[in-house]
């Protein structure tokens, strides 16, 4: 039975790791991730979680120890933010290429500089092509549910890849929400004990991470690419099973009032709930608008996105990026959405805006402004306006 509890989202995420009975936690403190790891350390200290908590001296070591522990056959959990993830970067690639299914809770925070402890998505976008499965939560319940599902997805023998669950720093981490928490027994049934495919076993010695000579490096990368692409069916299976067991349905691409919409706002993370409020306001004014959430970021849900956006009522998409691709195509989400639609015949126009950088709140009127930009593009027929490459930042003081 699930109990509805008022709980800080960070604590709920830590509880998910406890319920998954992780063997090793390796993490370095960074705002706004701290409450997650503090709670885990307390659980270990109280004997409520039988795990080894490694108090590492940096995030680089945090991820390195995760990879080592996972390679030794343990279920491993870590959590970080922003600069911490950037420092881990080198080893983030190793976690996926060594196929160690580490689960990471990423409290999304802006990258320096200037230093900002507040939320945007520049940290995760930096890790876009690292080979991790990458999923966004837009509220505390989702963060808890997805953390649980991350173990099932990553550790599936058909997958064996690390998984990153994203949730907005402070906006979610430090908020107390009513969350349905499952009984430990239910989770023990949902998440079976971890069985590695290969591990550092003295009775069966293998060499992990040998030199990738030019004769095999390409094949190794192909193998990894196929693994993350094929993880998609497992992700859907786990979403289905979760829905069947607990009644909450997750999809790779979520929609809100998009069925008959002409203009949709596409975004990731907690802003989606605010965008939905803007949709309601505009709907009351008779405008045909909706919202689309790109929940699954890697593997990229090409077909799902095309199904929602192409050959439907949607004529205009406004993509909200929470990160700037400096000197590039405005933002990474815009770039990828456009790329996914490129070969489609019956496709909407796609325009990009940037907002909510470094903890800047996005107010209702700013969401409405984003829809207005979409309307204008649709009216003028000019994809992305007069200066297509100009980064349109909503909420900027000129």
């Amino acid at each position: 039975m699930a109990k509805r509890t008022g709980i800080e989202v960070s604590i709920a995420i830590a509880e998910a790791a406890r319920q998954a009975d992780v063997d090793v936690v390796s993490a370095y403190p960074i705002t706004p991730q701290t409450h997650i790891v503090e709670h885990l350390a307390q659980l270990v200290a109280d004997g409520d979680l039988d795990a080894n908590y490694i108090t590492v001296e940096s995030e680089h070591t945090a991820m390195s120890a995760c990879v080592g522990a996972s390679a030794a056959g343990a279920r491993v959990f870590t959590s970080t933010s922003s600069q911490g993830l950037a420092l881990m970067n080198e080893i983030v690639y190793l976690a996926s290429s060594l196929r160690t299914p580490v689960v990471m809770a990423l409290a999304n925070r802006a990258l320096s500089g200037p230093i900002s402890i507040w939320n945007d998505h520049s940290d995760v976008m930096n890790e876009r092509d690292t080979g991790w499965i990458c999923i966004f939560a837009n509220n505390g319940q989702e963060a808890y549910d997805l953390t649980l599902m991350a173990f099932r997805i990553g550790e599936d023998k058909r997958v064996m890849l690390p998984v990153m669950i994203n949730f907005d720093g402070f906006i979610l981490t430090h908020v107390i929400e009513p969350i349905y928490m499952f009984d430990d027994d239910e989770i023990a049934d949902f998440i079976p004990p971890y069985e590695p495919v290969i591990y550092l076993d003295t009775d069966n010695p293998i060499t992990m991470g040998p030199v990738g000579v030019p004769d095999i490096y390409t094949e190794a990368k192909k193998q990894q690419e196929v693994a993350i692409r094929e993880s998609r069916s497992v992700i859907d299976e786990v979403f289905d099973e979760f829905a069947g067991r607990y009644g909450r349905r997750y999809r790779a691409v979520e929609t809100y009032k998009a069925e008959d919409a002409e203009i949709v706002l596409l975004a990731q993370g907690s802003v989606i709930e605010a965008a939905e409020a803007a949709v309601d306001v505009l709907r009351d004014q008779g405008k045909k608008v909706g919202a689309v959430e790109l929940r699954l970021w890697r593997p990229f849900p090409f077909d799902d996105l095309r199904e929602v956006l192409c050959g439907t009522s949607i004529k205009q998409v406004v993509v909200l990026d929470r990160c700037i691709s400096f000197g590039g195509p405005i933002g990474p989400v815009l770039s990828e959405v456009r790329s996914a639609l490129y070969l489609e015949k019956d496709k909407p126009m796609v325009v990009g805006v940037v907002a909510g950088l470094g903890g800047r709140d996005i107010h209702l009127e700013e969401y409405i402004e984003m829809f207005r930009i979409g309307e204008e593009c649709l009216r003028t027929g000019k994809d992305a306006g007069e200066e297509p490459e100009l980064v349109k930042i909503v909420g900027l003081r000129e």
Partner: protein
Amino acid sequence: MKLKEKPTWRELPFACCIPEPGNSVYYKTGDWKTLKPVVDKTKCIKCGTCWIFCPEYAYEEDEYGYFESNLEYCKGCGICARECPAQCITMEEEVVE
């Protein structure tokens, strides 16, 4: 099982691990050398100094307790000849026929 040097991506083991321990024995380094050690068994005292100081683990002990370098692996560094307390090893030119 000998792993292929040029496998397809499907043949490549999971996470490109090498499942067979110590399979570099298939890789012969003996053709690196220009000089080879020759043991004069009439002087050899069977102490094992050549064996313990061989970076290649090329020396093998025979049934009589003599050590002799396996030339399929010996790279010809000459440490054995230098360290032999009985001075029974000489480095001689490899003659290629």
